[in-house]
């Protein structure tokens, strides 16, 4: 029997891995969009076991719209408008990042197994491991890429991971759509604010390389 949720998770892992070795900004944005759609579908697939409700589908559509379309589109515009040189510029190499991703998954599997979550179904355990890996990969991207825009993408991937962890653990939150909507709204505003700052950074520094910003220190 095939589990659709597992396939989703495998695709999320794939996008995580590819994002670690991706050397082009556009490809990174596309991967993020793909990941956004997959991540939004996870609660839908998990919850369908308990029956599909109108709200569930509506919220799924909203999530896809925000995580899969709106935010990637904003990032896409930012890359188009702001970045002239569309290489990713890693601080540590792509192969090292991939290796870090591997270590991350070993770590997440280890953590998931040592939590003794016997009450959770198997799906959720795999989901938890995937989520921790996604979060870790987001952190890796955030820390090891030089361009400010890749840091935003790293943050968003990390946020996806945390959202997945929430999906695996805190079921009640996902039935309170007001709260979910508020979290989503925060995310959109965060991307908007970061985009505005990014634009200004580009105007002022003529680049979005964060290593240029080192004037404030003690």
């Amino acid at each position, binding site marked *: *029997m*095939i*589990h659709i949720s*597992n*396939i*989703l*998770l*495998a*695709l999320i*892992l*794939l996008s995580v*891995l*590819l994002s670690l*070795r991706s*050397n082009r900004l556009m490809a990174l944005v596309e991967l993020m969009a793909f990941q956004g759609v997959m991540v939004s579908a996870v609660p839908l697939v998990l919850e369908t076991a308990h029956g599909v409700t109108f709200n569930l589908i509506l919220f799924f559509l909203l999530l896809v719209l925000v995580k899969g379309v709106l935010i990637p589109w904003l990032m896409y515009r930012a890359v188009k408008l702001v970045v002239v040189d569309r290489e990713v510029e890693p601080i540590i190499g*792509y*192969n090292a990042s*991939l*290796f870090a*991703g*591997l270590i991350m*998954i*070993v770590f997440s*599997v280890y953590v*998931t*197994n040592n939590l003794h979550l016997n009450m959770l179904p*198997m799906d959720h*355990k*795999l989901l938890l*491991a995937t989520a921790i890996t996604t979060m870790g990969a987001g952190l890796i991207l955030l820390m090891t890429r030089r361009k400010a825009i890749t840091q935003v993408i790293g943050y968003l991937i990390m946020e996806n991971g945390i959202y997945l962890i929430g999906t695996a653990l805190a079921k009640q939150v996902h039935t309170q759509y007001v709260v979910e909507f508020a979290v989503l709204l925060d995310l959109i505003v965060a991307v908007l604010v970061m985009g505005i700052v990014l634009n200004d950074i580009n105007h002022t520094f003529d680049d979005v390389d964060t290593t240029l910003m080192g004037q404030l220190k003690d």
Partner: protein
Amino acid sequence: MNISFSFASLAMLFAAFALAPLLMGVILKVKAFFAGKQGPPWLIKYHTLVKLLQKGSVYSTSTTFIFKLGPVVSFTTAVMLLLFFPFAGMAPVLSFHGDVIMLFYLLGLGRFFTVLAALDTASPFEGMGAAREVFFSSLAEAAIFVILALFFRLSGSLSFAEYFTGTHAVNLWSESAALILLVVIALFIVLLTENSRVPVDDPATHLELTMIHEVMILDHSGPDLALIEMGAFCKMLFYASFVSCLLFPFQTGTPFFNIIIFAMVMTLVYAGVGLVESITARYKMDTVPNYILTSFALVCFATILTMEFVL
């Protein structure tokens, strides 16, 4: 060791052997379609083989018997691979416990002699190609052996045929489908690497400096080249069948349906190669290891997750 000389097994083996050049034609057709051209005839590869076999071989005076040995060994090892393969769910001609290790060492042996033959010519280009070939295949081999370990974990067997038959058959429709999906993608990358396809290597390139596999066989001619070509077709067939077996379990019960579906899936895989060749550009030489290592990382992901979550 199980030896099956049944009519079905032998027939499948010969059919596969005979159809390998035709399937290569599929790739060319797909590429031509995407380029908006009519493309070469379906049977182009047969014509090439016949043409090559009719010619005589030319040998440089600086070469030794190793140069002549190269094509023969690479051809025979490639044919031997097919002996172990359970085409369309049929029992393979040969199989024994642990034959997977043997299979990939056979592949290695064939490559080793191709490389030796290339080095034997003392041509600087061939040495360069050999170095690249060995580097990239050794990276791909890492991925392959992780895949084998993963399959052993899933099916509990070390025999190639038993991977795809029996109760714990490994394929996309089994319990651990999601992880097999990662493996399929990784294996496809390995397929592209091992068979010198775009984006790792471009078989259609005309510049020695950019070649990997082609440059190693520049000095072979006539029947020798035909053997090498045929060996390459067999190798491609082997990998493509490997991917097909993961995509679909050929256990419908009726051999006839098995064969039909198998042929269709195989055509799809070859068409997929053609598709990838049409829509991707070839990678710069220094990003190729990155690409191959991705397949390694993918199967590692799958393996780690399987170790913990399956069964």
